[in-house]
């Protein structure tokens, strides 16, 4: 429901994402604020925000794949890893420019995603989920078992991983936390722009039709296989781009960063945020990272309270809390925070005429 007084008078205004002058103003101020954070925030919070931006990009890919097209992927972190490894190998071993690697890492992850999406030719639903689960392990296994000697005779790859050289743009070093934060935000905004617009195109509508009813979509003349593969490619392309950001934000990659648990948390973030909306991706990444932060703060307190269990708490606390939160959302509110937000918006726009909701 639109705010009172916003009227649709022509087709363009009906299709517009940003509807009113106030919204344009808020958007501009919001983006300005996002970038200006880099001027005053501490390194700790800049790193945190960069991580959130990376999650948002990855979840947007998952949102296109799962939220729009209805195909599950529980190997998304591994596709992200493919992107990160492509950057690491190409820049540190072959000396390619980091910026050239941005599309390359996306493409590489997309192609790998296409391969593991192949079973969707004949299958749907959770068979595909199992295929991507296998993909996660196969990719991590490959990362662990490929190692070679570099020019200086050091062993790279394998379980040691690789380090990523500095990112520069026209002679400016983008390695500082604040500079890289701006890069991450820019990539995130571009990704959001694309995802938001994809939903309104023919392709996006085909994705939604396939999610809602495959049979009906096929009867309407959509090539199921083609669109599903396209969804896989775009979703994994996003993961690859997120991997590019990941590689440069941490400056080293190793197989441990891309485990199955992290893939499950990515899907969890999508569920917490709400499937099928770009805003949901933001809600999911933000609330999950806040939860992570909260657990980090509360862990020392708990370790002091139960010193005999300090070692277990270190591992089990985050696993337990994350899984409980995701389970609560799955059982109680599978449409996620975005749905709650919509309900709240409806409530205050109609206040005090609550009965208008029908």
């Amino acid at each position, binding site marked *: 429901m639109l705010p009172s007084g916003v009227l649709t008078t022509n087709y363009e205004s009906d299709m517009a994402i940003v509807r009113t002058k106030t919204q344009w103003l808020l958007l501009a101020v919001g983006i300005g604020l996002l970038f200006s954070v880099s001027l005053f925030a501490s390194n700790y919070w800049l790193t945190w925000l960069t991580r959130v931006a990376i999650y948002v990009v990855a979840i947007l890919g998952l949102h296109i794949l799962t939220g729009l097209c209805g195909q599950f992927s529980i190997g998304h972190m591994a596709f992200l890893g493919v992107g990160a490894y492509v950057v690491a190998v190409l820049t540190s071993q072959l000396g390619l420019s980091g910026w050239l690697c941005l599309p390359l890492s996306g493409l590489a992850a997309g192609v790998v995603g296409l391969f593991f999406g192949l*079973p969707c030719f004949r299958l749907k639903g959770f068979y595909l989920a*199992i295929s991507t689960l296998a993909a996660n392990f196969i990719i991590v*296994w490959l990362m662990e*078992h490929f190692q070679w000697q570099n020019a200086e005779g050091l062993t790279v790859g394998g379980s040691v991983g690789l380090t990523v050289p500095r990112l520069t743009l026209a002679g400016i070093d983008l390695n500082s936390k604040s500079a890289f934060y701006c890069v991450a935000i820019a990539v995130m905004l571009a990704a959001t722009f694309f995802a938001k617009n994809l939903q309104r195109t023919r392709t996006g509508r085909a994705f939604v039709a396939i999610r809602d009813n495959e049979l009906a979509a096929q009867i309407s003349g959509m090539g199921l296989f083609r669109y599903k593969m396209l969804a896989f490619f775009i979703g994994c392309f996003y993961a690859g781009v997120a991997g590019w950001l990941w590689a440069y934000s941490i400056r080293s990659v190793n197989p441990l960063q891309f485990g199955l648990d992290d893939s499950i948390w990515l899907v969890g973030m999508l569920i917490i945020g709400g499937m099928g909306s770009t805003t949901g991706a933001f809600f999911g990444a933000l609330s999950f990272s806040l939860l992570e932060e909260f657990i980090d703060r509360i862990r020392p307190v708990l370790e002091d309270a139960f010193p005999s269990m300090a070692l277990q708490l270190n591992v089990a606390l985050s*696993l337990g809390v994350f*899984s409980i939160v995701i389970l609560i959302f*799955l059982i109680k509110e*599978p449409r996620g925070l975005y749905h709650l937000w919509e309900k709240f918006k409806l409530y205050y726009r109609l206040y005090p005429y609550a009965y208008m909701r029908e």
Partner: protein
Amino acid sequence: MDTFLGALVEGILHGGIYALLALGLVVIYKSSHVFNIAHGEIMMFLAYFMVFLVSSQDLPIGLSFLLVIAVGAGVGLACERIFLRPLIGKPMLITFMVALVMGILIRSIAILWHGGAPQTIALFPSGYIRVGDLSFSSTLVWSFVIALAMFLLFMLVFRYSKVGLGMRCVAEDHQTSQSLGIDVKKVFALSWAIGGSMAAIGGVLLGSLTIVDSDTLGLFALVRALPVLLLGGLESVPGALVGGLIIGVTEILASTYIDPHIHGFRELLPFILIVAVLMITPHGLFGLKRIERV
């Protein structure tokens, strides 16, 4: 030749155990259409429980095995009642996701309780059984025997008892069963209880074969059960046995002949098998091809 024969027999022995791992998943999937991907983690949890009973409480092995099976049934019931009962009728991907996250929750509980340190179970006296030139660890042989016995017991119950008839009926159609007077929810609970006790047996057997470790045991079990299931067909009980034997033999043969050349290939193989089976025969050898009608 001896290497080949040895590997073949060892593969069959492993295959029997894998079939038992997969059976627990088949039972639950058949009746309630929930793909219980947390099965591996439940196994790990129960294997730790076995360690707890044997080493901390000093109970005899036989008694604690029975206790663990009972507790396994309880864990299965609890999972069904708390997490899956509210989701009856929801899309399968939601229940799949719930099961996946439930597995992580169970793992975190196991780590909290036992510290996640690797443990061992000595279920059978160690030693080797020799047949001609070949020798097999007696733990493996005994585990195979127990797994096969449990498998046959379940098949008999499923085929000839009234409870089994009810379960088969529910597997066919929920609504029809309900109108015939079968308590579908009770059958769900029962199949989860059976699945849980299968997890207990499988967990203890696997724990005695390898080590009980919170990081690896659950994954090991799940990763073996998945290709078995997919190859045999998700709804098929005999399929689990056939699939188990095929996967077991393939794994041991591959690890005998390929592992020396490609290090760590044995860990990778189940995943390659999963992807290959999904691409080549997605519904498995004995699975049902569901035809959607408008």
